[in-house]
Structure formats: structure tokens, C-alpha cells
């Protein structure tokens, strides 16, 4: 795969890279190939959205890119996958890392934001933001707490730092979750339907927040089924049935757009036709895989 950028520039190497990634959920008769030979690269300053129908594998791809999940070594039939699936985070092959090393990498380089599962309910907003910093251990606790308060203030939550997470509104919780994801100045922010559970006003708030972060050079990968939200990203990846079917810059955005460095998977296949899974309700994309 040829890189166009100057090889000497550190910023030129992709922060996340998936190479021939397969992911099979379940086993035996229930084995379900969720990702089929997906390759993608995310650069260090990109704002990327991944769209696709429920069950297209977009969330799974996000978890794999963030090192929360690992690619499969065997396909649905149990045969080893060749060439093997590989995910690189900041150049490190996650296949070579054990659980603790991968956790450390997530702590240092990745910030996750989810649709539900926002916060630890028994901790205050400030403590929630503080915890990843305490885990990283670079800042002593008072400084970490101070930085947490600063981050919350940046997101308009300065009055609620001491409030328990379960006593914040949904929009506030999601903003605290974004602040927490940014606590360790991650190389990339991975958001899985960050507005999926919010009302219009709060959705816009979070969307504006993301655009502002992206404008300041924060790499973001966002999974969403909201096309208007997705179109605000500089690059949009479309997935269907476990494959990337389109990957192109979006129209009318000010951010620089990187040229696609991987071949598109827009060959023939089931991707062209609406899958039966696509007809199902998309309200709870997390649960669709369980069917």
C-alpha cells in the first residue's frame, strides 16, 4: 500500500490501521461473520464517520480499531484466516499485545464514547473524568482533578463537577463522557452513536463539540446512522454486510480530506440489496447483533 505523504513525518503514519480484518461472532452453527476482510486507515487529524445499516459491522469495526475487541483468527467454518487479521494502533500490532498491554494502549491513545453506558454512576462528574488519568498515572491526583474540572468547564459543565453522575441529565452525561474520553489527550476519539440516545438539542450540542474538536486537530472516528451528523465529518465510510462499500470525502466541508489509501470494496455482492437485517428497527443498534 503506497503512502502519498512524506515518510519522515510522524504525522503521516496512520494512527489506526486495520488490515484484512475478519470478525466472526459466536461459534459453530451460530457463527456469524460480522466483518469480512476489512482494511482501513485513519490518519492523525481526520474526522471520519462510519455509516451503515444496523448489522453492517460498523460498531464492531470501531471496537476493533480501538483495541476493545480482537479480530478473529478463524472464519465461520473454523478455518484459519489467511492473511491473518491485523489491527495497528499507532503502529503497534495489537495481535502481539496481551490484555494488560492492550488496556494500557487504550488508556493512553484511545478515547471511547458510547451511546448508552455513559458513566460510573457512583462517582462524581469530575471523578469520572479523573479516573483514566489516575490509571495512566502521569499526573498526581490533585492535578488530575484540576484538569478534569478544566475539561468539564470547557464543555459547559463547570457547575456540575461535584455532582454524582446519575444525577446529571442524558446530555450532560454524554458531555462528561466526551470529557472523560479526552482526559488523557488521546490520539483518536472513537464514538459509537454518540447522539443516538439524545434529543435534538443535545445531539446538536455534541455534534458541534465534535466539529470543534476536529477543527483543533483531534482525530475522531464516529459510528452513526444519522446521515446529517455523518456528513459533518470530512470523510465518510459506508459499510454494508461486513464490508466497506464506499469511502470518500464528504462534500462542502472545510477540513482537508485525505485521499483514500485503500481499495474500495464495491464489488458485487449482497451489499447492493437491502439485507433482511436492514429492515429491522434501528433504534437500538447495539442489540441488533443479538438477534
Amino acid at each position: 500500500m503506497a503512502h502519498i505523504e512524506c515518510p519522515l513525518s510522524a504525522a503521516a503514519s496512520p494512527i489506526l490501521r486495520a488490515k484484512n480484518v475478519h470478525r466472526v461472532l459466536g461459534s459453530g452453527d451460530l457463527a456469524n461473520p460480522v466483518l469480512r476482510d476489512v482494511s482501513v486507515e485513519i490518519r492523525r487529524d481526520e474526522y471520519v464517520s462510519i455509516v451503515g445499516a444496523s448489522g453492517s459491522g460498523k460498531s464492531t469495526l470501531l471496537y476493533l480499531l480501538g483495541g476493545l475487541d480482537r479480530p478473529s483468527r478463524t472464519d465461520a467454518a473454523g478455518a484459519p484466516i489467511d492473511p491473518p487479521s491485523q489491527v495497528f494502533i499507532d503502529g503497534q500490532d495489537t495481535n502481539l499485545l496481551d490484555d494488560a498491554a492492550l488496556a494500557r494502549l487504550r488508556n493512553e491513545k484511545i478515547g471511547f464514547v458510547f451511546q448508552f453506558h455513559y458513566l460510573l454512576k457512583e462517582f462524581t462528574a469530575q471523578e469520572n473524568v479523573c479516573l483514566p488519568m489516575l490509571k495512566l498515572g502521569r499526573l498526581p491526583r490533585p492535578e488530575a482533578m484540576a484538569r478534569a474540572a478544566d475539561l468539564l468547564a470547557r464543555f459547559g459543565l463547570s457547575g456540575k463537577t461535584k455532582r454524582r453522575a446519575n444525577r446529571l441529565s442524558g446530555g450532560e452525561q454524554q458531555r462528561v463522557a466526551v470529557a472523560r474520553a479526552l482526559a488523557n489527550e488521546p490520539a483518536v476519539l472513537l464514538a459509537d452513536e454518540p447522539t443516538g440516545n439524545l434529543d435534538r438539542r443535545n445531539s446538536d450540542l455534541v455534534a458541534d463539540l465534535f466539529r470543534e474538536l476536529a477543527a483543533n486537530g483531534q482525530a475522531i472516528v464516529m459510528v452513526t446512522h444519522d446521515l446529517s451528523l455523518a456528513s459533518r465529518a470530512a470523510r465518510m465510510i459506508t459499510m454494508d454486510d461486513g464490508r466497506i462499500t464506499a469511502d470518500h470525502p464528504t462534500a462542502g466541508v472545510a477540513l482537508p480530506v485525505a485521499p483514500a489509501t485503500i481499495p474500495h470494496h464495491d464489488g458485487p455482492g449482497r451489499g447492493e440489496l437491502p439485507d433482511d437485517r436492514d429492515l429491522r428497527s434501528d433504534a437500538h443498534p447495539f442489540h441488533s447483533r443479538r438477534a
Partner: protein
Amino acid sequence: MRWFITIRYLLSHKRQSLVCIAGVTISVTMFIAMTAMMNGFTDKFIIETVESSGHITIKDEPRETRTPILERAYPDPNALLALSNVKPRDTVRKIDNPTGLLLKLQHMPGILAAAPEVFGDVIATYGTKTINLNIHGIEPERQVKVTTIANDMLEGGLQRLGTTADGIVIGKGVADALGARMDDSIILAGATGGRTSARVVGIFRTGVTPVDYSRGYMLLSRSQTLLGKKNIVNEIVCRTDDYERAREYATQIEGICGYRTESWQESNANFLKIFDIQTLITYIITGALLVVAAFGVLNILIMAVLERVNDIAILRSFGLSRWDIGVIYTLQGFVIGLVGATVGLGLGKLAVEGLRRIPVTLEGLVRSEGLLMSEHASQYYLAFFSAIIVVLFASAYPAWRAARYDPVEVIRGAH
């Protein structure tokens, strides 16, 4: 960070945490109080027995009983032996040359003093009351060196045996049973026809009930006459410099004299066995309490894990490893064990002091004023560490379950 999360989790479920801690506390407190009480009685019995009966007793019999000569000649169990009307040889049981043996004992290392005794049962009568009395014939000046009988006198004294020719010193129980008081004369009748009257010149109470209710001390020579055992010595009682080493001294003496020589442990093996069983039961009961407490911890930690599955997924997403998650739940168990055991030590100490002050008089195997509490540092250590270790074991399974959750499955909604 792990401690921060652990403490917050425990504090946010205060009531469950307190119930768990209380369970551990109760078992530790009970363990300390019960073992202190058991040890108190055991120690009291040992001290009283050892000090009033002597450390080592040399008996007037060989260790092995003699087998009939015919059986020795034909040891094959299938040999056909027919004997009828076999009578044992009519020997008088005694220690040969007691004076020589006493001299030898004087020069043995570790043996502080030795005193000869003759003993036998007589019928004691006073007025209309009659009881069995176990007469010990002693030499008072030697006897006070091997036992603490002189300290157990309620009235009169052992030395008066030397000044009153027909004196007898009896246990408090014997005196009460006969209704005899100081200076009363009681009638003694031996099994071989000896008969005499004796004046009560002392009453003792050792605290060991069987002794107080059956024993009388008289001069050696008068006892020999009464019991029909002229110049016979049945026992030599020794005092050692360390009663814990009585067993090894007894073995040495037996090697020298050939007579069966019992340490106090051997003489009281039945009682000591009862104490062992008693101790075992105490351990089982308090151990069961601890196991119940541990199940409480297990139960509450499993609930805590199930309740916080989302937390586990979030913590894993921002960088905690499986190990970190396991540690957080193990630490919760550890804190419960530590706090419960520490409070239990304090309450255990208070319980020991409180029980010590209960004003009751107990008369069983030994007599005591108030409950006897004997504390050993080892009991406190044992209670403390076993509680923590058992609770840690109980938290291992919830911790393992917590660590096993796959964050992606949780986020997908599988849990």
C-alpha cells in the same frame, strides 16, 4: 486508582458492606472469646493437676504386663494351649529399694525433688456417714517439695501430721460428705483388716474435684500399718524444673528404674483428650461462623458484580485490564475482611475482659471463682489472618467473574 474505586464501591453500598463486615466481626469475636474460655479451663486444670499431683509419678509396676510362661514358650497363636485354674502369683506390689531410688533421683538433672507415697482405699466413718477414702501415706517435709498441697490448705496444715501422731488431712469434699470438722476423730477401716481412728488436722481444696472428694493424707508409716503394707512404697512423686518437659524426664527415669513412670500428661491422657475434642469443637463452630460470613461476602460481591456490569465495560474501555477489574473486586473482599477482623479483635478482647468479670462460681472437673479466660497471642493472630484469608477466598470467584466479562458483549447488550 484501584483503591479509590474499591472504597467508593464499598461506601456506596454501605448497608451491604456493614452486614458483611459484621459477619466477619462476629466470627472473629466468637473465636477469640470461646478459645480464651476453653484455654482458661484447660490451663487451670493442667496447673491444678500438675501442681497438686506432681509432675511425674513412678508406679510400682513394670511397663509391660507379664504374659504367662506357656504363651511365651509357644508364641504361635494357632498353638493348642489348654490351661485351667491359673492363679496369678501372690505378689505384693511395691517399689523395691525406694530409698536407693530416691537417692538416684536426687542426682538426676531436671528433677528438683521426689517423695515416696503409699496408697490404698479405706472406709472412713464419722457418726452415721461412711465414704470411701483414698489414703495417701506421705512424708510431709518431702511432700511439700513435690506438690503445692501446702498452698491449698483451707484449715490446719500438713506439718501438723508430724506433730499429731494420729493426724489426717482430708479434702474439703470429704469433710463435707462426712460432716467432719477440724479436730474431729474419724474411723478408718482398711481392706486387710487394719482399723484405726484419726484426727482431722487439716482440710484442703486443690480445685480438682475428684481429688477434693476422695483423698486423705496421713503419715507414711501409719498408712503402711493401716493398709497392711509394712515398709512398702507404691509411688514416688517427682517435681521437675519444667512441667512441659515431664514426658522426656519420665522416659529417662523409666530407663533407670524399670518401673512404669508416668508424666502428668500420660496420667491425665483422658482429660487432655477431652480438652482436645473440646478445642476441636470450638474451632468447628467458630469456623462454621466464618464460613457463613464468607458466603455472605461471596453473595454480596456477586450482586455487586452483576449490578456493575456496565461499569466493568466502561472501566475496560478507558484502559483497565482484566487484572485491574479482578483486583478491584478482590480488594473489596480484602477490605471487608480487614475491617471485620480488626473490629473483631477489639470486640474479642472486650468480650474476654467482660466474661472474666462475670461473678459465677463453677464446680465441675475443676472449681473456679469466675470464668477463667486464658489469652494467647496466637489465638488473636489465628482469628485475624484466617478471617482475612477465608474472605479473600470468598471474593476470588466474584473477582474472576468480573474480570471475565467481555466489554464488547456488555456494550452490545448481551449482559
